[in-house]
Each structure stands twice: as C-alpha cells, then as structure tokens.
C-alpha cells in the first residue's frame, strides 16, 4: 500500500512501568523474550504491506534508534519504503517538545506531506496485538470516512476510567465518544489506532495547534471531529493488550504461556532485530542435565541448569544449578545464581539475583508504597543492572531500583511493599 503511511507514537516514558522505563521509552521495553513492544506495531505494518513509517519519539530514543536500524526486518528498505525516527527539532521561535500525540504528528506534517499519502495510520508503539490493516483501509475508503478508529469490545467495568468509549450506530458510524468515562455508555473501547484521510488530518491538526490545550488526539482532535466529519469504527476481535503497570506487563507475559497461549508468537510472525551484546550470535538455548523447564518461553542464548516454570526469559539469561524461577519475566542477560529463588518477579536487563537470595516471598500485603498504581498485584521488580546480593530476601510488590549495587543493601531483607534506591534509601 504505497498510499498509506504509518506514524507510530513511541515517545512516552509512562510512569506506570516504573524502573522499566527509566532508561528507555515504553515502545523500546523488551517484551516476549526477544522482542520489544514496538515490534508488534511494526510487524502488523509490515504484514499489511505498508512501506513508509515515521516513528515519533522524544524520551531517550537511543535504544529505539538502535533497534529500528535501517528497518530491514520489517521490509522498510528500498524505493518508496523507509522508516524514519522523528524526534522533536528546533526550527523557529515556536520550537518546543512534543506537547501531546496530536502535536507530535502536527510537528511532522512536513514528513507526511512529502510522501503524499491518501491516508495516514496513527498507531501506538507499545501495544501487543497482530492486525491486518488492509481490510481497514479498504472499508475506510469504500465508506468515504475521514477517520476510522479501531475499537474493541470491552467490559465497561474493566475499562472505565481508563479507556475512551465510542458509541457506534448500526451503520458503523461513530455518533458519540467519551474519554475515560466513569460510566461508559457503550462496550466499545478505543484502542488509540486511527486511520485518517490525509487532508482531514492536516486540517484538524492545524486547528488543534491553534486552539488546543492537551494536544492529544484522543481528548481533543477526535471529539472535535464528531458531528462534523465522517468518523467510523472498526472492531478488532483478536488479542490486544497494553501494559499500563508492572502488574499488567507481567500479566501480558503470562499470556504467552499455557496450552493455547493468547499471544501466539509462532502464528503472529513477529519480526524483530536480534540485538545482543558481544560479537557472536546467541547460541541455541542450553539445558543442562539437571535442568527442568516447563510451560515457559526461552530465547536464544539462555542457559538453564536449574528450574524454570511459567516464565519468559530473554536472550542471554542464565539460571544456575539449584535456582528456581517461577511465574517470572527475566530480561536480557539477567543472572539467577545457584540456589536462588525468584517468584512472580520482573528482573530487568543485567539484573543479578545472588546465591540463595529470594525474590518474591511471603503473602501479598498491600501495594508498593512508592508506586501504588504500578506495583500492587504481588509482582516485584528488580531494575536494570540491579543486584540482589547473596542470601538477601525480597518480599512482594517490592522495587529494587535500576543500578542498585550490593553495597546499597543495609538490611538482610526488603519487606513487602518497600523500595530500595541507589543510595541505599528504603521507602
């Protein structure tokens, strides 16, 4: 589809993911072992034969730049194809950071215009799904819509206060929309994926740039179009998730497991760039004689001498002899030393769980005190490069911040709900 370009919003830091987004934008957070969140949007774009993509990013974009490279995993190299990272830039007196999703696209309308697309697909870089956009484009054009928004049937109880809900008439036309209502009037939640007719997008964004205050597509541009433009809804019935907390991030990983995983990586054909430290490629997964691996997903370069159950391990993770990892997510090159136990935890890149240390023990009593919205479901988070020294114990809903070293540990245990910072501060 030469005449559609995709603009992927990948800028946000998203506080709810706590230490996971301290060093990277959410779109670059690893997911599913060897992937990053943005691979899901990019793979759907690639499988829909969309060849021109802009990635809007402003928060610590370096891992995203590395990951995108020249875009060849997603067929984004060639004539009429390409992926471009679009950071904020200084141009004139009005230069400023991206003030919101609408403003980010607005500031890059020059990129859109240069390629003269008929329609512009605006996506988020941090959603997990697999979608074919071609039928959406087809229906959009056939109906003469100015905007087609993707919605999903959702229990209003679960989505209230979190999602925008659309009211749709029998003909598929959106007749009402409320942003994060406490009592939704429909069951159709917006997935913040939009297909705009280019001229309409340009006009509405210019308007919003003059008169807006939040500069968000969902809270300003979309409501302003209702009643004036032809807005339609496309219902997505497949899997879709969005990790808005450490708990949700953990839960989405559990969707990769079981007899029939809700996220079927083999069938979805997700594409990624294999990134790894060191010159060599990650070797095939190695299981030692005494290893036990059940109901888990292990990426290349993983070495297991202990036990791994109901867990997802990224490339280069090591689980030493006698260590037991259950219901957990271990990101790149994390090490669980011999005799350690890790239960219901997320361990970020290069995290080290020392010999006989325990992460995730005891009953789940109350949320993390520093980040009660992000960490409340019982999952503990060990930040990037942080160490839990040998023999130490970490309870539930704990946060060990990025880069915490052995010397930062004063007490033998971090009780449930507590956080440990780099200077040894416990909160």
């Amino acid at each position: 589809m030469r005449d559609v370009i995709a603009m992927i919003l990948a800028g946000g830091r998203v506080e709810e993911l706590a230490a996971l987004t301290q060093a990277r934008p959410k779109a670059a957070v690893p997911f599913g072992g060897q992937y990053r969140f943005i691979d899901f949007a990019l793979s759907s774009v690639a499988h829909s034969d969309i060849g021109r993509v802009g990635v809007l990013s402003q928060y610590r974009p370096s891992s995203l730049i590395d990951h995108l490279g020249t875009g060849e995993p997603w067929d984004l190299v060639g004539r009429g194809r390409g992926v471009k990272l679009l950071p904020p830039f200084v141009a004139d007196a009005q230069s400023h950071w991206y003030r919101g999703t609408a403003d980010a696209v607005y500031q890059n309308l020059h990129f859109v215009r240069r390629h003269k697309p008929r329609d512009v697909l605006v996506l988020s870089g941090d959603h997990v799904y697999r979608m074919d956009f071609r039928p959406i484009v087809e229906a959009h054009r056939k109906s003469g819509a100015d905007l087609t928004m993707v919605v999903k049937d959702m229990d209003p109880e679960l989505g209230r206060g979190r999602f925008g809900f659309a009211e749709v008439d029998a003909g598929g036309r959106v007749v009402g929309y409320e942003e994060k209502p406490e009592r939704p009037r429909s069951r159709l939640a917006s997935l913040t994926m939009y297909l705009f007719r280019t001229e309409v997008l340009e006009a509405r964004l210019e308007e919003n740039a003059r008169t807006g205050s939040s500069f968000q597509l969902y809270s300003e541009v979309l409501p302003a179009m209702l009643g004036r433009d032809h807005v339609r809804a496309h219902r997505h019935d497949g899997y879709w998730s969005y990790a808005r907390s450490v708990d949700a991030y953990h839960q989405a990983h559990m969707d990769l497991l079981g007899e029939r995983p809700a996220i079927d990586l083999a069938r979805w054909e997700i594409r990624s760039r294999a990134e790894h430290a060191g010159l060599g490629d990650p070797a095939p997964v190695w299981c030692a004689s005494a290893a036990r691996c059940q109901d888990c997903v292990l990426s290349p370069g993983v070495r297991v001498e202990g036990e791994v159950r109901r867990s997802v391990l990224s490339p280069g993770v090591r689980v030493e002899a006698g260590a037991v990892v259950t219901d957990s997510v271990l990101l790149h090159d994390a090490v669980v030393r011999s005799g350690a136990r890790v239960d219901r935890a997320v361990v970020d890149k290069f995290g080290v769980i020392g010999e006989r240390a325990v992460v995730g023990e005891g009953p789940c009593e109350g949320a993390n005190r520093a980040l009660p919205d992000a960490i409340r479901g019982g999952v503990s988070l060990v930040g990037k490069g942080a160490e839990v020294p040998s023999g130490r114990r970490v309870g539930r809903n704990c946060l060990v911040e990025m880069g915490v070293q052995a010397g930062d540990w004063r007490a033998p245990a971090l009780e449930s709900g507590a956080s440990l910072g780099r200077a040894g501060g416990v909160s």
Partner: protein
Amino acid sequence: MKKPLVMLLAGGGGTRLGVLVKQRAKPAVPFAGRYRIIDFALTNVMHAQLPWVGVLTQYKPLSLMEHMGVGEAWNLQGRSRGVRILPPRTGEADSDWYQGTADAIWQNVDFMDSMAPERVVILSGDHIYRMDYRRMVEEHVERGAALSIAVMEVAPEDTSRFGMLWTDARGRITRFEEKPKAADTRLASMGIYVFEYPALVKALQDIVATKQGNDFGAHIMPALLAGGNVYAHRFDGYWRDVGTVSSYFHASMDCLDASSGLDLEGWEVCSRQETLRDGDMPPVRFGARAEVGKARLSAGCWIEGRVQGSVLSPGVQVGPGAVVEEAVLMDGAVIRPGARVRRAILDKGVVVGAGAVLDGGRDEVTNKEYAKCQMDGMVVVGKGSRIPEGCRVGSNTVLEAGLQEADFPGDLPDGATLVRRAHP
C-alpha cells in the same frame, strides 16, 4: 604488514556424510542447532579481523551462497572488506572444473593477484574449531617461513586419517606422509596453510600448471618441503573434522557440554540468520509436561515431550509423549506424539509419524550402501522424508531424502537403506 588474504575451500562434496550432503556442500551442513559448518572457519576469520575472503565453491553451492549472503555476519561487508564467491568457470577449455584443492586456488590466481596480497591463508570450510589465525601468521613471519602449516597431536591409531608431519627442534617440517598406517610422529596437518604469496604462486606454477598434481596435501606441500622453509604451527585446542556420520554425531554431542572443548558461548560463533519464514523464529516454547535435559534448542522449537542429549535446529517440534534421545534434529523436523527417536540424525523437514520408532544405537548389522560413512549405529534420514505412523526403523539405517509414507514397505531392519521409488 598487510593483512593476509583468505582463500576458503568450500567445494567439497563430503560423500561420507551420506544423505546429509545430497543437496548441499559439506560446509553448508547444519551444525550445533543454528549454525552451518562453515560458520566456524568464518568466525575465526572474523575474530582475526581478516578483511578479504575468497570462497571456492563447486559442489552444490546454493545453500552455501544463500547462507553467506553479502558476508555482513562476519564483518565482511564494507569499503575495504568483502567476500567473493569463486565458482568454477569456463576458461581456455570448455569446462574447467576444479580438479583438486590446489587446482581450485590456481584457477583463481587472477582474483588473488587483483588483491595484491603479501600472504595467503588457505582454510577448509569443513572443520569445527576456534583458532586465532593472527598468532599463526605472526609466528610465520617471525620465522621467515615460506609456508606454515597448522598441526595438532593425534592418537597413534588415528595417523591413517591424516597427513602426518615430522619436525625438527625449531618446528621446521622435515618430512610429510599422507595417511600412513603407522608413524613415529603424532603431528597431523589440520589443512590450514599460511603461504608467502610469491612462494604459493611459484609452487602452483611449477606443479599445477604443469599438470604434476593438484592437491595441497599430496603435491604442493611435499614439493615445498625440499626448500627447507616450511614450519609447523602447533595448535592444541578443540578441532574436529566432521566428515563422517560418526564424527558429525560425536562433534554435535560435544556442543552439549563446554567441557568437551566445543564452547559455543565462549567461542562467540557468528552465523547469518537465514529467514525462511515471514516472521522471525520465536523463542523456544516448552509445554507444561516437557522434560528436557542436556540439550541445545534453537529458536522456534516447541517441546511438549522428552528431549535428552540432543541438538535441535530452529523450528523443531517434539509432540506430547514423544521421546528424543541422543539425536540431531535439523530445521523444522517434526516428531509426532508418542514417537521415539534414539541415536538418529534427521535432516531438515523430516516428519516422524505418531508412535513411530527410530531405534539407533546398535552397530551389529552393517549398512552396505553407506559403510564408508561410519554409521556407528545411527539412523540417518534425508531431507523432507516422512516416516509413517507406528513404523519401526532399526540401527545403521539410511532413509534417503524425499520419502513419502507410501514409499515404506513396512518396518526397516538394522542395516537397511530405503531409496525413493521412481515416481512416474
């Protein structure tokens, strides 16, 4: 000092690998899960930071060329680096197939001249090892050698498999014998040569151009020995020629335990990811009742049964209740529920039907057709063959590529070979 030019011999058919080399050259045979044999030589080239490689191909080079791509996986892409595939071409004669290793190099003297090398490193693409060629080249230069040959010690009973060398106290080679029954030396040639370029060209002119010989080990090396300027470079790491079914299998098992010396992680082996599917191979998936011990599993594997002491290439499926023991399963092999596979090598895309049994491990009845492969009791199944449900296959058996269920007469006894019936 100019970095030496690498000439990599990758043309061999490797007939003693039987059906595994039916459709590909030996260097292109998958090994250790995600790699191909040639990756080990290319990895050594990369880590030695040698920028130019000529790859000499002849026998069924397609998989090899596909695998090499433009060489970026081994840092061989750039303004001042690169890889050139050098297939045979017609010259003055209508067809100049390579007649031997030295002949292959001689026919590409124009390529070498164009690179104006001071030295040439000649390698073979079918060995599993990790070696720093820079140390060998340094030693070669220090000694002022015309030719240096990498050597290692082998057991006295193995001398008949190697070119054996005798050296003096300074490491100068004084005598050479090709595959002697017995020898009072333990130094074997590893087929790795560093030549001063003028000395190489002169030897090729004298011997190959005058049709006196066309092989490095048999003809070039003995001729150069007379000049007294040929040295041995000692190597004592892991090195295997995986030229037979038995040696291929045992080297494969070595990658299950780094104490064998074959240390995939430590060696930093580089390979090119070949995409045969629309998406990437996902991570390895283990079912709730999987039992996996001492195994290598590549991306895309899905294990619901039991896997012990085995090496699995990308995309292999082992169904519930299936048992795989001491086996090598190449890309996309499928072991259906309840099937048992023991001491077997399955090429790409082989399907073992539910409840079928591949029962390798007994070396009692010789396989006559493939005796020279040193079957060692293995079951070897060619690319894409489909073994019917419940079928029993004995040891020392070879099932050729492309067999369909209907091609099976029933169970196959020890030593049997099954060939694809000619389809009308």
